């Protein structure tokens, strides 16, 4: 055999690994995280279709989504790929396959969920920390619902001539949006988001990662986003929120978020400027809390637990 004349072990290649250190994901590993996240959240959404919903007037006390599933994903794995995958699971498994596809409304939902999850996932440094998981669960729903409120309000402002001067309209929209927000935060964010994530993520930590050939997330090496200091984090978060709003508004102008699912309640908007300002305020407050939270946890880490506000405190602060 002529070819075998080459030395069997070219040392230069054998010890040159294809990829550097463990935190860097290969494209296959990214794909795995993505597909896993997509599959699980898709399944979770099919399951929520099954759960009967309790409707109290305009307010659905149903589980709009099982937020804990993607929260665990972004907490355990690389938040970017997990956050990109999860909302696609909803679009594909439920909306496309079950014949519920709602056009551009899907894009809106995808962006909202992605941003919520990504920010939440970056907040988590240690998936075993109940405090951080609680914050993550709440943040997902806060970001998601806040963005959706902004979009809804924009729809009303565009859809109705001088909406802010129509008597009673702004207030009623604000009221319904507010109720919806609170219910979503309590049910999807806390009951089916933060609390289950707090119960499951620590049990899965260190167990599920090896099944994908990944190293568990190391609290000593948090995600770059949170690592680069709070200022950068805040800027990025602000930027992302802003981009999503711009995206929402531009797509608003060209077309609309045509949805025919019976959650129109959110779509009756309000006097845009007025609400927009308060929405922006909420964003800022949430960000400030998030920043403080990150700072506090950094300090706590530095001081090795000299002070430790528990989950409830975090909840109150927000």
């Amino acid at each position, binding site marked *: 055999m002529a070819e075998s004349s080459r030395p069997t072990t070219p040392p230069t290649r054998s010890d040159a690994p294809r990829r550097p250190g463990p935190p860097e994901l290969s494209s296959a590993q990214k794909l*795995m995280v993505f597909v896993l996240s997509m599959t699980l959240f898709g399944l979770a959404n099919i399951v929520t279709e099954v759960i009967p919903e309790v409707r109290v007037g305009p307010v659905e006390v149903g589980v709009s989504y099982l937020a804990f599933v993607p929260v665990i994903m972004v907490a355990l794995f690389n938040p970017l790929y997990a956050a990109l995958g999860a909302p696609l699971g909803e679009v594909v498994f439920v909306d496309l396959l079950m014949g519920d596809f*709602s056009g551009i409304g899907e894009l809106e939902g995808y962006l909202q969920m992605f941003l919520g999850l990504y920010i939440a996932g970056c907040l988590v440094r240690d998936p075993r920390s109940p405090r951080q998981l609680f914050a993550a669960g709440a943040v997902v729903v806060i970001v998601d619902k806040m963005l959706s409120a902004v979009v809804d309000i924009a729809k009303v402002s565009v859809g*109705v001539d001088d909406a802010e001067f129509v008597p009673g309209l702004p207030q009623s929209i604000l009221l319904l949006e507010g109720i919806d927000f609170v219910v979503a935060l309590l049910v999807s964010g806390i009951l089916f988001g933060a609390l289950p994530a707090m119960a499951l993520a620590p049990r899965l930590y260190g167990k599920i990662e090896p099944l994908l050939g990944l190293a568990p997330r190391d609290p000593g090496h948090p995600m770059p986003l949170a690592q680069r200091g709070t200022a950068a984090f805040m800027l990025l978060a602000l930027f992302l929120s802003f981009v999503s709003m711009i995206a929402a508004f531009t797509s608003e102008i060209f077309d609309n978020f*045509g949805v025919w699912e019976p959650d129109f309640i959110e779509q*009756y908007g309000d006097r845009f400027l007025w609400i927009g300002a308060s929405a922006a305020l909420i964003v800022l407050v949430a960000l400030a809390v998030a920043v403080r939270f990150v700072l506090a946890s950094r300090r706590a880490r530095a001081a090795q637990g000299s002070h430790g506000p528990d989950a409830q405190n975090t909840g109150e602060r927000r």
Partner: protein
Amino acid sequence: MRKERDGISVEWVKLELLRTAYATRGGLLAARDPRFVIGWYLIFAVVPWFTHNITVLAALFTVCAAAVFLSRVGPLVLGLFVIGFVLESLYVLFAAWLFGGDMSTVLALVVLTLKLATISLASMAAFVSLDPEKLSDGLLSMHAPAMLSFGVSYGYRMLPVLMEEFHTVVDGHRLRSAPLAAKGFLGWRVVVRTATTLVQAFYPLMLNTAKRTRTTVEALETKGFTYAAEHPDGRRIRLAHLRADHRDVLLIAVTLLLVAASFALGHAYPLQAGVG
């Protein structure tokens, strides 16, 4: 006495998938090129935002309602849509009345409702009867990410399998966990039990799915999925079957004509919801 029910089950999911897959209902838009269907939808998603004229909106609404009828949208979907719409409108009206609304509020709401309803009807007519694979091919050809169309196929593939596993795990919980001594006030214990079971079911599901995913992604690698992301040939072949014919063009032409007619009608008989 318990009875066998055909409610939500693995078989039900399979049935639903088959129904959407074979687009059994057929109808006006089901046979059209998906890109043109998406275009058709976009017309109705955009146009209503350019007018506050109730006559125009009503005409557009009528066109979309007719399209829904021709698309043979199931009565259940339609019924839910109507009930939802009426209820939501009532809530807003009630709230508006509470805050001192008047006739102009009602008119404003009519405008908004017509716009949203038109767009919703358009998405129903376009997408309910369209085979998801075809739809995702259409989106792919409009440069949507390849993951979208992969996700659709993969969902088709995995959904029944996953549902089956979910059922097995939930059944395991039903059989093996402590029986409830009492249902509690309004059955709250049952609610809590259902919720906790649901959450706990995801523990094994996540681990089992992770195991599956490893094989799947390895297989994707060998089947050139990542190769296709970098080389356009595969995409071209996949989308080669998308071919528009004169009927697709006709569809858009007729639609544009109808939209123009609506605006003409609105111009002739204007009805505005203005602020007094």
